């Protein structure tokens, strides 16, 4: 039972159900006209997501391996053609071939995938937090350098060069050409309010 509850799909379905339950519960406190649509949409939402949760729990309890589709991409195309070409049979040269260009992915176990996920979200949240506190002009170059250097494993020279060019380009395009001014951060605004920046 514990493994069922720890199943990611089950947890996500539970989260979705929880979302609808909370939204409907809060809506009950609103005046009649204000709560109409949230209830009209939320109650079916609860019903559907409850159904989905039950299905996910059943699926998690009876884990059965899905037969792996051993067909190549090109063989799948053959099936698509046979659906639409009627009685005419089409044999494909490409079935015996490989694509000239292949996309390779590094082999990954669940732990490595989880680590990468944490890294990616950490960078993203740190960037958002950085923009809010320090503003775009500090955060953008720092983020670009760190990401290119530590995640993409590029050299310091490349990372600094790319970050510099990108930041300069954004400044020219947005602030000088389009007059769209980017946020300078809560810290800057606090310092401005206190007169520390002479503004």
């Amino acid at each position: 039972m514990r493994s069922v509850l720890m199943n990611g799909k089950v947890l996500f379905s539970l989260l979705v159900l929880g979302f609808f339950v909370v939204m409907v519960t809060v809506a009950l406190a609103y005046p009649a006209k204000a709560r109409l649509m949230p209830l009209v949409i939320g109650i079916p939402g609860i019903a559907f997501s409850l159904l989905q949760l039950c299905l996910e729990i059943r699926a998690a309890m009876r884990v059965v391996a899905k037969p792996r589709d051993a067909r190549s991409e090109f063989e799948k195309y053959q099936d698509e053609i046979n659906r639409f070409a009627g009685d005419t049979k089409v044999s494909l040269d490409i079935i015996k071939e490989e694509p000239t260009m292949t996309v390779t992915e590094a082999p990954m176990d669940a732990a490595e995938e989880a680590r990468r996920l944490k890294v990616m979200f950490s960078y993203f949240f740190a960037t958002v937090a950085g923009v809010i506190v320090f503003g775009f002009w500090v955060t953008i170059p720092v983020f670009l350098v760190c990401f290119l250097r530590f995640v993409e494993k590029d050299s310091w020279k490349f990372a600094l060069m790319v970050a510099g060019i990108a930041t300069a380009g954004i400044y020219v395009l947005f602030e000088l050409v389009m007059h769209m001014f980017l946020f300078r951060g809560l810290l800057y605004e606090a310092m401005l309010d206190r007169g520390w920046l002479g503004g």
Partner: protein
Amino acid sequence: MLEIMGSTLFNLLTWPFALWTMLLGTLIGIVVGILPGLGGRLAIALMIPFVFGMDMIPGAVFLLSLHAVTGTSGQFTSIMFGVPGEGDAAATIVDGYPMAKQGKAGLALGASLMASGIGGVLGALFLAIMIPVVKPIVLAFSPAEFFLLALLGITFIAYVSGNDIFKGIIVGLMGLMLSFIGMDPQTGTARYSEHFLFMWDGIDLISAVLAIFAVPEMIALGVRGGSISNVSRATSGYDMKQVFQGCRETFNHWGLVFRTSLIGAVIGVIPGLGGSAASWFCYGHAVQTSKHPERFGHGAIEGVIAPETANNSKEGGSLLPTLFFGVPGSSGMAILLGAFLILGIQPGADMMTKNLDVVWYLIWALVLSNILAVAILIFACRWVTLLTFVRGGLLIPFILVICVMGTYLAAGQWENLVVLALLSILGYGLLHYNWPRAPFVLGMVLGRIAEESLHKALNLWGLEFFLRPLSLVLIGLILATIGWAIYKGRGPKMPDTAAMGGG
């Protein structure tokens, strides 16, 4: 009608800013179509913040041009490398790739480019011709029916966007629920936002679109860490003579081009059929109508022409339900619809009456952007192909920066960055656990309109509104779509078909 046709074309051609946005949109669409890791939907989502505040026509022209040509450049990798650039370009591989291996890459590229351009133009003309045909149908809908149309739109997009229609409907309902956050126009109640002043106008749509589409794609790309390996053999290369010859070859198959353009446009009109259906259907049609079907699969040029005309002509067809009924013809159109609403283009009967000129601007934008894309690609194809070798990981930080910038610039509120961060967790969850995301955007986009429509309907007819003939038709269509999805195996998955594990 002729007067509007002529005046809008003249205005567009003499409006420097609109022409500039069309060119920019076309260029970005070409680049996006060929870059690995990006797609048309992501590109539109990224560009929405930057059209916010633009005039309606240049903004709409920019986004539509971008969307219309992503399929045109996607065929490069299909033909040269056997890998579809955009999902709808898969059918082109079947004969395009063998042609490249026979040393006829230029011929295939030229034919596919010209076919794409002609298909796009004919699709736009199809839309134009259908305007007087659908006018009485559109005008028969009262604003009250929009509530059911919104639900129908979500159902269609749920059907086309994933393998499980119920997940799609749930996600659509989530989008609708989030659209209710903010000040209720009926009563002035601050729903779900009593303590957050910045949310009294609702959750910012741009933040939501970026959080649900763009950020999770980049997070997933970073997690996968994919890279394009070296090309395993030297590319066959091509010369420009072959490319021009391929362009001329398209005109030798005028009948096929015309038929497949029409079929593609009709398929585009029908929401729920999906983008690749047009390409495969037309490929099958080309096989069935050929005097020598045995050539297909071995480098028949008709096998390149047919899917490419359909791929582009369907865009004109899919604009029809999007603009006049608010029911997007595809998931890409769902995001485009959101952008149109931000720009002030309201789908429905007004598009037929007060804003018919806007429709014509969009038709001409489709025509001109397709012509422009073909012209650019024919002469720049060598350099464009180099983009396929751009490292996917290099794009991630820039796209994320654009997302953060776009979120802030849309409304000038840093609080929306918090919304972006929180919703991106939901977006990644939807992506990771295979829940479709397009219905969410549609729900958010149509939520307020649907609510207003329901209140109007109840004020006018009470609950008897659901028994009106048009309402019954729409309810029937919703139920039929769900029933069809369950019949075709797209309903909720039962345990004996579940995959092992679950993340």
